[in-house]
Protein backbone atom coordinates (compact mmCIF):
# COMPACT_ATOMS: atom_id res chain seq x y z
CA UNK A 1 0.00 0.00 0.00
CA UNK A 2 2.58 2.49 1.09
CA UNK A 3 5.43 3.23 -1.20
CA UNK A 4 7.27 4.84 1.66
CA UNK A 5 9.75 2.51 3.29
CA UNK A 6 9.31 2.20 7.00
CA UNK A 7 12.01 1.31 9.38
CA UNK A 8 11.06 -0.43 12.59
CA UNK A 9 12.96 0.82 15.61
CA UNK A 10 15.33 -1.90 16.64
CA UNK A 11 14.82 -3.37 20.05
CA UNK A 12 17.50 -1.86 22.26
CA UNK A 13 19.91 -4.23 23.97
CA UNK A 14 19.19 -4.62 27.70
CA UNK A 15 22.24 -2.62 28.74
CA UNK A 16 20.88 0.45 26.99
CA UNK A 17 17.51 0.16 28.60
CA UNK A 18 18.28 2.38 31.57
CA UNK A 19 19.76 5.05 29.38
CA UNK A 20 16.67 5.04 27.22
CA UNK A 21 14.47 5.51 30.25
CA UNK A 22 16.44 8.55 31.36
CA UNK A 23 16.32 9.86 27.79
CA UNK A 24 12.55 9.74 27.95
CA UNK A 25 12.59 11.57 31.24
CA UNK A 26 14.92 14.23 29.88
CA UNK A 27 12.72 14.73 26.83
CA UNK A 28 9.66 15.13 29.02
CA UNK A 29 11.40 17.53 31.40
CA UNK A 30 12.70 19.60 28.49
CA UNK A 31 9.30 19.99 26.91
CA UNK A 32 7.56 20.80 30.15
CA UNK A 33 10.09 22.93 31.92
CA UNK A 34 13.77 23.41 31.07
CA UNK A 35 13.08 24.05 27.40
CA UNK A 36 9.37 24.86 27.48
CA UNK A 37 8.35 26.07 24.03
CA UNK A 38 6.33 29.01 25.31
CA UNK A 39 8.07 30.53 28.31
CA UNK A 40 11.64 29.42 27.44
CA UNK A 41 11.77 29.50 23.65
CA UNK A 42 8.88 31.97 23.26
CA UNK A 43 7.43 30.10 20.29
CA UNK A 44 3.81 29.58 19.29
CA UNK A 45 2.84 32.97 20.69
CA UNK A 46 0.42 33.75 17.87
CA UNK A 47 -2.01 31.04 18.90
CA UNK A 48 -1.21 31.55 22.60
CA UNK A 49 -2.65 35.05 22.22
CA UNK A 50 -5.46 34.26 19.82
CA UNK A 51 -7.33 31.25 21.14
CA UNK A 52 -7.00 31.64 24.90
CA UNK A 53 -10.10 33.61 25.85
CA UNK A 54 -12.18 30.49 26.50
CA UNK A 55 -10.84 27.37 28.22
CA UNK A 56 -12.76 24.96 25.99
CA UNK A 57 -11.44 26.43 22.73
CA UNK A 58 -7.94 26.39 24.18
CA UNK A 59 -8.27 22.77 25.22
CA UNK A 60 -9.22 21.69 21.70
CA UNK A 61 -6.43 23.79 20.23
CA UNK A 62 -3.89 22.24 22.61
CA UNK A 63 -5.06 18.70 21.81
CA UNK A 64 -4.77 19.45 18.09
CA UNK A 65 -1.28 20.87 18.52
CA UNK A 66 -0.05 18.02 20.72
CA UNK A 67 -1.42 15.45 18.26
CA UNK A 68 0.29 17.20 15.36
CA UNK A 69 3.64 17.69 17.09
CA UNK A 70 3.84 14.14 18.39
CA UNK A 71 2.83 12.43 15.16
CA UNK A 72 4.81 14.76 12.89
CA UNK A 73 7.95 14.09 14.93
CA UNK A 74 7.25 10.35 14.76
CA UNK A 75 6.77 10.46 10.99
CA UNK A 76 9.77 12.69 10.34
CA UNK A 77 11.84 10.32 12.42
CA UNK A 78 10.53 7.23 10.60
CA UNK A 79 11.46 8.77 7.26
CA UNK A 80 14.73 10.31 8.41
CA UNK A 81 17.03 7.83 6.64
CA UNK A 82 15.26 8.18 3.32
CA UNK A 83 14.66 11.92 3.20
CA UNK A 84 17.22 13.77 1.07
CA UNK A 85 18.89 16.45 3.16
CA UNK A 86 18.16 19.31 0.78
CA UNK A 87 14.40 18.85 0.59
CA UNK A 88 13.80 17.89 4.24
CA UNK A 89 11.97 21.15 5.07
CA UNK A 90 9.50 20.55 2.26
CA UNK A 91 8.89 17.03 3.50
CA UNK A 92 8.44 18.23 7.08
CA UNK A 93 5.95 20.89 6.05
CA UNK A 94 4.05 18.30 4.04
CA UNK A 95 3.87 15.92 7.00
CA UNK A 96 2.79 18.67 9.40
CA UNK A 97 0.14 19.91 6.97
CA UNK A 98 -1.15 16.36 6.59
CA UNK A 99 -1.85 15.95 10.30
CA UNK A 100 -3.33 19.43 10.64
CA UNK A 101 -5.71 18.96 7.71
CA UNK A 102 -6.88 15.69 9.25
CA UNK A 103 -7.79 17.58 12.45
CA UNK A 104 -9.41 20.38 10.47
CA UNK A 105 -11.57 17.96 8.46
CA UNK A 106 -12.56 16.02 11.56
CA UNK A 107 -13.62 19.22 13.35
CA UNK A 108 -15.56 20.46 10.33
CA UNK A 109 -17.43 17.17 10.09
CA UNK A 110 -18.02 16.25 13.71
CA UNK A 111 -17.79 19.50 15.69
CA UNK A 112 -18.78 22.36 13.36
CA UNK A 113 -19.33 24.83 16.20
CA UNK A 114 -15.80 24.36 17.47
CA UNK A 115 -14.50 24.54 13.93
CA UNK A 116 -16.19 27.95 13.57
CA UNK A 117 -14.90 29.14 16.96
CA UNK A 118 -11.31 28.31 16.14
CA UNK A 119 -11.69 29.60 12.60
CA UNK A 120 -8.39 29.81 10.76
CA UNK A 121 -6.28 28.93 13.80
CA UNK A 122 -6.51 25.19 13.23
CA UNK A 123 -5.04 25.62 9.76
CA UNK A 124 -2.42 27.96 11.16
CA UNK A 125 -1.03 25.15 13.34
CA UNK A 126 0.93 24.24 10.18
CA UNK A 127 3.02 27.35 10.62
CA UNK A 128 3.49 26.92 14.35
CA UNK A 129 7.24 27.09 14.90
CA UNK A 130 7.17 24.60 17.76
CA UNK A 131 6.37 21.69 15.45
CA UNK A 132 8.92 22.37 12.78
CA UNK A 133 11.42 23.32 15.46
CA UNK A 134 11.11 19.89 17.10
CA UNK A 135 11.19 18.07 13.76
CA UNK A 136 14.31 19.94 12.70
CA UNK A 137 16.14 19.98 16.03
CA UNK A 138 15.25 16.55 17.34
CA UNK A 139 13.17 14.15 15.28
CA UNK A 140 15.32 14.08 12.18
CA UNK A 141 18.33 12.83 14.14
CA UNK A 142 16.67 10.53 16.69
CA UNK A 143 14.85 7.21 16.63
CA UNK A 144 11.02 7.24 16.33
CA UNK A 145 10.08 6.32 19.92
CA UNK A 146 11.97 9.11 21.63
CA UNK A 147 11.01 11.59 18.88
CA UNK A 148 7.35 10.88 19.57
CA UNK A 149 7.87 11.45 23.30
CA UNK A 150 9.83 14.63 22.63
CA UNK A 151 7.14 16.00 20.31
CA UNK A 152 4.41 15.13 22.77
CA UNK A 153 6.30 16.75 25.66
CA UNK A 154 6.68 19.98 23.69
CA UNK A 155 2.99 19.91 22.83
CA UNK A 156 2.06 19.35 26.45
CA UNK A 157 4.44 22.07 27.62
CA UNK A 158 2.71 24.45 25.23
CA UNK A 159 -0.70 23.25 26.41
CA UNK A 160 0.18 23.81 30.07
CA UNK A 161 0.95 27.50 29.52
CA UNK A 162 -1.98 28.07 27.16
CA UNK A 163 -4.45 26.51 29.56
CA UNK A 164 -3.11 28.67 32.41
CA UNK A 165 -3.54 31.79 30.27
CA UNK A 166 -7.03 30.67 29.27
CA UNK A 167 -8.12 29.93 32.84
CA UNK A 168 -6.97 33.38 34.00
CA UNK A 169 -8.58 35.14 31.04
CA UNK A 170 -11.90 33.35 31.18
CA UNK A 171 -12.14 33.70 34.96
CA UNK A 172 -11.33 37.42 35.06
CA UNK A 173 -12.99 38.32 31.78
CA UNK A 174 -16.16 36.22 31.89
CA UNK A 175 -16.32 35.07 35.52
CA UNK A 176 -16.62 31.49 34.38
CA UNK A 177 -14.63 28.30 33.91
CA UNK A 178 -15.44 26.10 30.88
CA UNK A 179 -18.58 28.18 30.51
CA UNK A 180 -19.79 27.43 34.06
CA UNK A 181 -20.14 30.53 36.26
CA UNK A 182 -17.65 30.46 39.14
CA UNK A 183 -19.01 31.53 42.57
CA UNK A 184 -17.42 34.81 43.65
CA UNK A 185 -16.61 35.74 40.09
CA UNK A 186 -20.08 35.86 38.58
CA UNK A 187 -22.53 38.50 39.73
CA UNK A 188 -20.61 40.62 42.25
CA UNK A 189 -17.41 40.48 40.23
CA UNK A 190 -17.07 43.29 37.73
CA UNK A 191 -15.91 41.44 34.64
CA UNK A 192 -12.68 42.71 33.14
CA UNK A 193 -13.74 42.85 29.51
CA UNK A 194 -10.19 43.66 28.49
CA UNK A 195 -9.14 40.16 29.55
CA UNK A 196 -11.21 38.52 26.81
CA UNK A 197 -9.96 41.04 24.27
CA UNK A 198 -6.54 40.67 22.62
CA UNK A 199 -4.66 42.97 25.08
CA UNK A 200 -5.69 40.69 27.95
CA UNK A 201 -3.69 37.90 26.37
CA UNK A 202 -0.56 40.04 26.22
CA UNK A 203 -0.83 41.00 29.90
CA UNK A 204 -1.54 37.47 31.07
CA UNK A 205 1.12 35.81 28.96
CA UNK A 206 3.75 38.38 29.93
CA UNK A 207 3.03 37.88 33.63
CA UNK A 208 3.13 34.09 33.29
CA UNK A 209 6.44 34.17 31.41
CA UNK A 210 7.83 36.46 34.09
CA UNK A 211 6.71 34.16 36.91
CA UNK A 212 7.93 30.97 35.24
CA UNK A 213 11.26 32.46 34.23
CA UNK A 214 11.87 33.76 37.73
CA UNK A 215 11.04 30.34 39.13
CA UNK A 216 13.46 28.57 36.81
CA UNK A 217 16.21 31.20 36.83
CA UNK A 218 18.15 29.82 39.81
CA UNK A 219 18.53 26.40 38.32
CA UNK A 220 19.67 27.76 35.02
CA UNK A 221 22.47 29.83 36.49
CA UNK A 222 23.93 26.85 38.34
CA UNK A 223 24.67 25.18 35.03
CA UNK A 224 28.32 25.38 33.99
Amino acid at each position, binding site marked *: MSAVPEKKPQAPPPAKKRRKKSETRTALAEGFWTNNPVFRQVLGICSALAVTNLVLNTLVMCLALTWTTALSCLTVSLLRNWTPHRIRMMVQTLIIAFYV*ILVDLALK*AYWPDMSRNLGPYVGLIITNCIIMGRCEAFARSHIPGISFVDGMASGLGYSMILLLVAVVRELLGMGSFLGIPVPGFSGVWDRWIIMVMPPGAFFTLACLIWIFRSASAGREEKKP
Partner: protein
Amino acid sequence: MSLRDRPWYPVLYMFVVTAFFSTILIGFSRLTRDRVEVNQQVAFERAVLQVLPLDLPDKISPPEVHRLFVERIAAPTAESGGAYLLMQDGKPAAFALPVQGQGFWDMIRGVVGIGADRQTITGISFYEQNETPGLGAEIVQPPFRSQFPGKSIARTGKPLRILPVGTRLGPSDVHAVTGATQTSTRLERFLEEALTRWRAEEERSE
Protein backbone atom coordinates in the same frame (compact mmCIF):
# COMPACT_ATOMS: atom_id res chain seq x y z
CA MET B 1 25.63 4.35 -7.77
CA SER B 2 22.82 3.72 -5.36
CA LEU B 3 19.31 4.98 -5.83
CA ARG B 4 19.77 7.72 -3.28
CA ASP B 5 22.70 9.27 -5.09
CA ARG B 6 20.83 9.72 -8.32
CA PRO B 7 20.11 13.34 -9.15
CA TRP B 8 16.40 12.66 -9.65
CA TYR B 9 15.98 10.83 -6.36
CA PRO B 10 14.69 13.92 -4.42
CA VAL B 11 12.06 14.50 -7.12
CA LEU B 12 10.91 10.90 -7.02
CA TYR B 13 10.92 10.90 -3.22
CA MET B 14 8.86 14.07 -2.97
CA PHE B 15 6.45 12.71 -5.55
CA VAL B 16 5.94 9.44 -3.70
CA VAL B 17 5.58 11.07 -0.27
CA THR B 18 3.11 13.67 -1.57
CA ALA B 19 1.08 11.02 -3.38
CA PHE B 20 0.92 8.89 -0.24
CA PHE B 21 -0.25 11.65 2.13
CA SER B 22 -2.61 13.23 -0.41
CA THR B 23 -4.30 9.89 -1.04
CA ILE B 24 -5.14 9.55 2.65
CA LEU B 25 -6.39 13.14 2.83
CA ILE B 26 -8.56 12.79 -0.26
CA GLY B 27 -10.01 9.58 1.12
CA PHE B 28 -10.78 11.16 4.48
CA SER B 29 -12.30 14.28 2.95
CA ARG B 30 -14.59 12.12 0.76
CA LEU B 31 -15.58 10.16 3.81
CA THR B 32 -16.61 13.28 5.72
CA ARG B 33 -18.02 15.22 2.76
CA ASP B 34 -21.66 14.36 3.42
CA ARG B 35 -21.43 15.36 7.05
CA VAL B 36 -19.71 18.64 6.17
CA GLU B 37 -22.45 19.43 3.66
CA VAL B 38 -25.18 18.72 6.21
CA ASN B 39 -23.39 21.01 8.67
CA GLN B 40 -23.22 23.80 6.09
CA GLN B 41 -26.91 23.38 5.29
CA VAL B 42 -27.80 23.61 8.98
CA ALA B 43 -25.58 26.70 9.35
CA PHE B 44 -27.53 28.34 6.52
CA GLU B 45 -30.89 27.34 7.98
CA ARG B 46 -29.83 28.66 11.38
CA ALA B 47 -28.84 31.99 9.81
CA VAL B 48 -32.24 32.24 8.10
CA LEU B 49 -34.09 31.55 11.35
CA GLN B 50 -31.92 34.04 13.24
CA VAL B 51 -32.75 37.02 11.04
CA LEU B 52 -36.51 36.48 11.10
CA PRO B 53 -38.75 37.73 13.91
CA LEU B 54 -39.27 34.30 15.47
CA ASP B 55 -38.18 34.71 19.14
CA LEU B 56 -36.01 31.63 19.17
CA PRO B 57 -34.00 30.50 22.17
CA ASP B 58 -30.24 31.16 21.99
CA LYS B 59 -29.28 27.53 21.74
CA ILE B 60 -31.10 25.17 19.44
CA SER B 61 -29.77 21.83 18.33
CA PRO B 62 -29.11 21.13 14.63
CA PRO B 63 -32.08 18.71 14.23
CA GLU B 64 -34.34 21.31 15.84
CA VAL B 65 -33.05 23.99 13.45
CA HIS B 66 -33.79 21.76 10.49
CA ARG B 67 -37.27 20.88 11.78
CA LEU B 68 -38.17 24.56 12.33
CA PHE B 69 -36.79 25.52 8.94
CA VAL B 70 -38.82 22.87 7.14
CA GLU B 71 -41.92 23.72 9.14
CA ARG B 72 -41.91 27.51 8.98
CA ILE B 73 -39.88 28.63 5.98
CA ALA B 74 -41.04 28.52 2.38
CA ALA B 75 -38.65 28.39 -0.56
CA PRO B 76 -38.24 31.54 -2.72
CA THR B 77 -41.12 32.19 -5.09
CA ALA B 78 -41.36 34.22 -8.30
CA GLU B 79 -42.48 37.31 -6.34
CA SER B 80 -40.09 37.11 -3.42
CA GLY B 81 -37.00 38.23 -5.36
CA GLY B 82 -34.85 35.30 -4.28
CA ALA B 83 -35.81 35.57 -0.61
CA TYR B 84 -37.01 32.72 1.57
CA LEU B 85 -40.42 33.38 3.10
CA LEU B 86 -41.79 33.16 6.59
CA MET B 87 -45.51 32.50 6.06
CA GLN B 88 -48.24 33.43 8.50
CA ASP B 89 -51.93 32.88 7.70
CA GLY B 90 -51.10 32.37 4.06
CA LYS B 91 -49.31 35.70 3.73
CA PRO B 92 -45.59 36.42 3.87
CA ALA B 93 -44.76 37.77 7.35
CA ALA B 94 -41.06 38.31 6.65
CA PHE B 95 -38.37 37.62 4.07
CA ALA B 96 -34.89 36.14 4.41
CA LEU B 97 -32.71 37.33 1.56
CA PRO B 98 -29.47 35.42 0.99
CA VAL B 99 -26.53 37.72 0.24
CA GLN B 100 -22.98 36.89 -0.71
CA GLY B 101 -19.87 38.54 -2.02
CA GLN B 102 -16.13 38.66 -1.84
CA GLY B 103 -14.78 39.74 1.55
CA PHE B 104 -11.21 40.71 2.32
CA TRP B 105 -9.89 37.13 2.35
CA ASP B 106 -12.68 34.92 1.14
CA MET B 107 -16.36 34.77 0.25
CA ILE B 108 -18.77 36.08 2.86
CA ARG B 109 -22.22 34.50 2.80
CA GLY B 110 -25.09 35.68 4.91
CA VAL B 111 -28.79 36.35 5.16
CA VAL B 112 -30.67 39.64 5.58
CA GLY B 113 -34.09 39.52 7.22
CA ILE B 114 -36.70 41.95 5.86
CA GLY B 115 -40.10 42.62 7.40
CA ALA B 116 -43.55 42.24 5.81
CA ASP B 117 -43.42 45.88 4.63
CA ARG B 118 -40.49 44.79 2.42
CA GLN B 119 -38.48 47.72 3.75
CA THR B 120 -37.61 47.29 7.43
CA ILE B 121 -34.60 45.11 8.17
CA THR B 122 -35.25 42.53 10.89
CA GLY B 123 -31.74 41.19 11.23
CA ILE B 124 -28.54 40.04 9.59
CA SER B 125 -26.50 36.88 10.04
CA PHE B 126 -23.43 35.37 8.41
CA TYR B 127 -22.91 31.66 8.03
CA GLU B 128 -19.67 31.62 6.12
CA GLN B 129 -16.70 33.97 6.36
CA ASN B 130 -12.94 33.86 6.83
CA GLU B 131 -12.21 37.47 7.73
CA THR B 132 -9.39 38.50 10.06
CA PRO B 133 -10.15 37.30 13.59
CA GLY B 134 -10.67 40.23 15.94
CA LEU B 135 -11.14 42.70 13.07
CA GLY B 136 -13.18 41.76 10.00
CA ALA B 137 -14.57 38.67 11.71
CA GLU B 138 -16.30 40.98 14.20
CA ILE B 139 -19.13 41.30 11.65
CA VAL B 140 -20.53 38.03 13.02
CA GLN B 141 -20.57 39.35 16.61
CA PRO B 142 -23.66 40.85 18.26
CA PRO B 143 -22.25 44.42 18.57
CA PHE B 144 -22.13 44.75 14.80
CA ARG B 145 -25.16 42.65 13.91
CA SER B 146 -27.47 44.20 16.50
CA GLN B 147 -27.28 47.52 14.65
CA PHE B 148 -29.36 46.18 11.77
CA PRO B 149 -32.81 45.35 13.17
CA GLY B 150 -35.14 48.33 12.68
CA LYS B 151 -33.06 49.95 9.94
CA SER B 152 -34.96 50.84 6.81
CA ILE B 153 -33.88 50.21 3.23
CA ALA B 154 -33.62 53.68 1.66
CA ARG B 155 -35.99 54.34 -1.26
CA THR B 156 -33.39 56.26 -3.25
CA GLY B 157 -29.60 56.31 -3.40
CA LYS B 158 -27.68 53.68 -1.52
CA PRO B 159 -30.11 51.28 0.12
CA LEU B 160 -27.90 50.86 3.19
CA ARG B 161 -24.70 52.60 4.19
CA ILE B 162 -21.91 51.37 6.44
CA LEU B 163 -20.24 54.48 7.85
CA PRO B 164 -17.10 54.97 9.94
CA VAL B 165 -17.59 54.92 13.71
CA GLY B 166 -18.24 58.45 14.95
CA THR B 167 -20.39 59.66 12.06
CA ARG B 168 -24.05 60.46 12.65
CA LEU B 169 -26.36 57.71 11.52
CA GLY B 170 -29.54 58.07 9.50
CA PRO B 171 -32.36 55.50 9.43
CA SER B 172 -30.50 53.51 6.75
CA ASP B 173 -26.97 53.64 8.17
CA VAL B 174 -24.92 51.46 10.47
CA HIS B 175 -21.41 51.84 11.85
CA ALA B 176 -18.53 49.90 10.31
CA VAL B 177 -16.09 47.76 12.27
CA THR B 178 -13.11 49.90 13.26
CA GLY B 179 -9.87 48.53 11.85
CA ALA B 180 -11.69 46.45 9.26
CA THR B 181 -12.14 48.95 6.45
CA GLN B 182 -11.71 46.38 3.69
CA THR B 183 -14.26 43.98 5.12
CA SER B 184 -16.70 46.82 5.79
CA THR B 185 -16.50 48.38 2.33
CA ARG B 186 -16.75 45.03 0.57
CA LEU B 187 -19.69 44.06 2.75
CA GLU B 188 -21.36 47.39 1.96
CA ARG B 189 -20.77 46.81 -1.74
CA PHE B 190 -22.44 43.41 -1.96
CA LEU B 191 -25.23 44.38 0.44
CA GLU B 192 -25.88 47.35 -1.82
CA GLU B 193 -26.02 45.11 -4.88
CA ALA B 194 -28.43 42.66 -3.28
CA LEU B 195 -30.68 45.32 -1.73
CA THR B 196 -30.78 47.41 -4.93
CA ARG B 197 -31.95 44.32 -6.78
CA TRP B 198 -34.48 43.71 -4.01
CA ARG B 199 -35.74 47.30 -4.22
CA ALA B 200 -36.06 47.14 -8.03
CA GLU B 201 -37.96 43.86 -7.78
CA GLU B 202 -40.33 45.38 -5.29
CA GLU B 203 -40.96 48.52 -7.33
CA ARG B 204 -41.75 46.37 -10.33
CA SER B 205 -44.29 44.31 -8.42
CA GLU B 206 -46.05 47.35 -7.02
